[in-house]
């Protein structure tokens, strides 16, 4: 019964595939095995690393980038991407379900360590040092940050912003009580989200509706949300400048964060020096522009995150 169903399905799928040619475009380029290439070390083959990530596009792309880099370095790699929010991911590292995951230094400081948003260092290295020290207190550790930083942002349609004369988040004062805000479920308790808007901007909204992060532009498009929590690295912002705007975070409640790799000293010990070296090496090319490009390929062009990550590794000369 199972075999027959599988057969039928395969048949169905192959028909779909056979109906057309392969029109992959060769969009990537890079040197093969250049100076920056990740070198596979056979000694790493005995070590299994489980790469985790949170539950949205950028995180899944990052998870793939790190997983493929570690694989290139010779490690046995498993993936547990799309875990959930930061709290779920942190628990997963602590319990050993995953070896590590990418976290924004700002999120770590504000969500985990209750640092006031205005006290989050603007300098990437300082923020990293502070987060690392805090992580170490709870038995975790972190590797140095990526070049790019991302932050939550309050976004709206350009026409809403024009109608209501909105440029900054503070401009919402007096208007927010008649506006509906959409954000991820955990937004309710995050300082760089609803909790911060209430606490630092003193804003009250007509309604806050928690929805899946993937719906953050859909709810604006359908005129259901007046305001929606977006990410500054979102591809949609660059691709549709005439449609969406971000309100300036004038009270600096939504600090930008560079990504740091959160792991445990035990894993570092077991995996050896290539672990940190590979992570920091592969993220060197992750500038804001590159990260936006990678996000766009998944979010807009709906390419599989694994492929997009592989294209990055190859184009940047990390893999042959």
């Amino acid at each position: 019964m199972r075999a027959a169903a599988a057969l039928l399905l395969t048949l169905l799928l192959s028909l779909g595939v056979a109906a057309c040619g392969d029109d992959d475009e060769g969009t990537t380029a890079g040197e093969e095995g250049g100076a920056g290439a990740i070198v596979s070390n056979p000694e790493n083959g005995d070590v299994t690393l489980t790469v985790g990530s949170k539950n949205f596009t950028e995180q899944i792309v990052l998870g793939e980038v790190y997983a493929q880099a570690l694989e290139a370095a010779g490690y046995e790699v498993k993936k547990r991407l799309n875990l959930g929010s930061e709290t779920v991911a942190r628990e997963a590292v602590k319990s050993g379900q995953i070896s590590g995951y990418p976290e924004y230094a700002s999120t770590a400081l504000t969500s985990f360590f209750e640092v006031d948003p205005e006290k989050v260092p603007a300098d990437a290295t300082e923020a990293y040092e502070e987060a690392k020290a805090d992580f170490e207190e709870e038995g975790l550790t972190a590797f140095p940050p990526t070049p790019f930083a991302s932050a939550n942002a309050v976004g709206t349609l350009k026409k809403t912003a024009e109608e209501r004369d909105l440029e900054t988040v503070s401009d919402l004062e007096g208007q927010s009580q008649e506006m509906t805000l959409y954000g991820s479920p955990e937004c309710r308790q995050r300082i760089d989200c609803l909790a911060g808007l209430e606490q630092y901007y003193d804003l009250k909204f007509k309604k806050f509706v928690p929805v899946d992060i993937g719906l953050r532009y859909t709810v604006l498009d359908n005129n259901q949300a007046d305001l929606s929590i977006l990410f500054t690295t979102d591809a949609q912002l660059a691709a549709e400048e005439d449609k969406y705007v971000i309100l300036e975070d004038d009270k600096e409640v939504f600090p930008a964060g560079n990504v740091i790799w959160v792991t445990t000293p035990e894993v570092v010990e077991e995996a050896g020096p290539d672990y940190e070296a590979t992570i920091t090496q592969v993220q060197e090319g992750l500038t804001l522009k590159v990260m936006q490009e990678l996000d766009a390929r998944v979010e807009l062009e709906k390419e599989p995150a694994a492929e997009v990550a592989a294209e990055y590794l190859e184009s940047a000369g990390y893999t042959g």
Partner: protein
Amino acid sequence: MSAAAAALPLAAAGEVGEGFFRERSADTRPCQATDALFCFGWARDNIGEYVTPAIEHVELVAISVVVGFAIAFALSLLAHRNAWLRPPLLGATGVLYTIPSIAFFFLLLPITGFGRDSAVIALSAYTLQIIYRNTMTGLANVSPSVKDAARGMGLTERQILWRVELPLATPEIVAGLRIATVSTVALATLAFFIGAGGLGEPIYEFITFKTNIIIAGGLAMAIAVAFDAILLLAQRRATPWRRAAAQ
């Protein structure tokens, strides 16, 4: 790919070349970056991504229905012999049927944990009542005169059950199995919540992308239809006398 590499200036390690960045404007946007209902080009290029979830889905349903059938069938035989078991069994399977699968998954989480086990237990528990009920109805519908005739021919009660009653009840039993299977295919789209994979996973991954939802949802429905057809064919082959009677 190497041809393209030669044409572009070599980038420093860790830097992607300028050619890496795509032009994006309203006119050059591919279908999948728009609000379109269905993007055939994307579907064609990405259908391969659905093979593993679809196979997982088929496996999950097959295992759950087989387990559910084994238990429900055994319960039916017990209840067939012991009438006093019928009300409690109907009640118990009814409760299992009524508990929404997604709640059932997470009720099992502290006991059987994250993964396929919890999904199989919840889904097979859901099928019990449907299969049990139909089997009991099928057995009850066998006319007493047929059983008397069998007794007259010297068959033991056990032989009557296996050679007369169950074959005659087969259409009802398969009807129950078909309903249970088709419903389980639909419910199994929720199994990814408990980490059991299946077609719910791709649906959830691009939850705003209609093409994706249509492909994954369509595959689930196709799997349901395929299972249904297979069961119907199997029943026709197992009960040739019904065809003879029809002719």
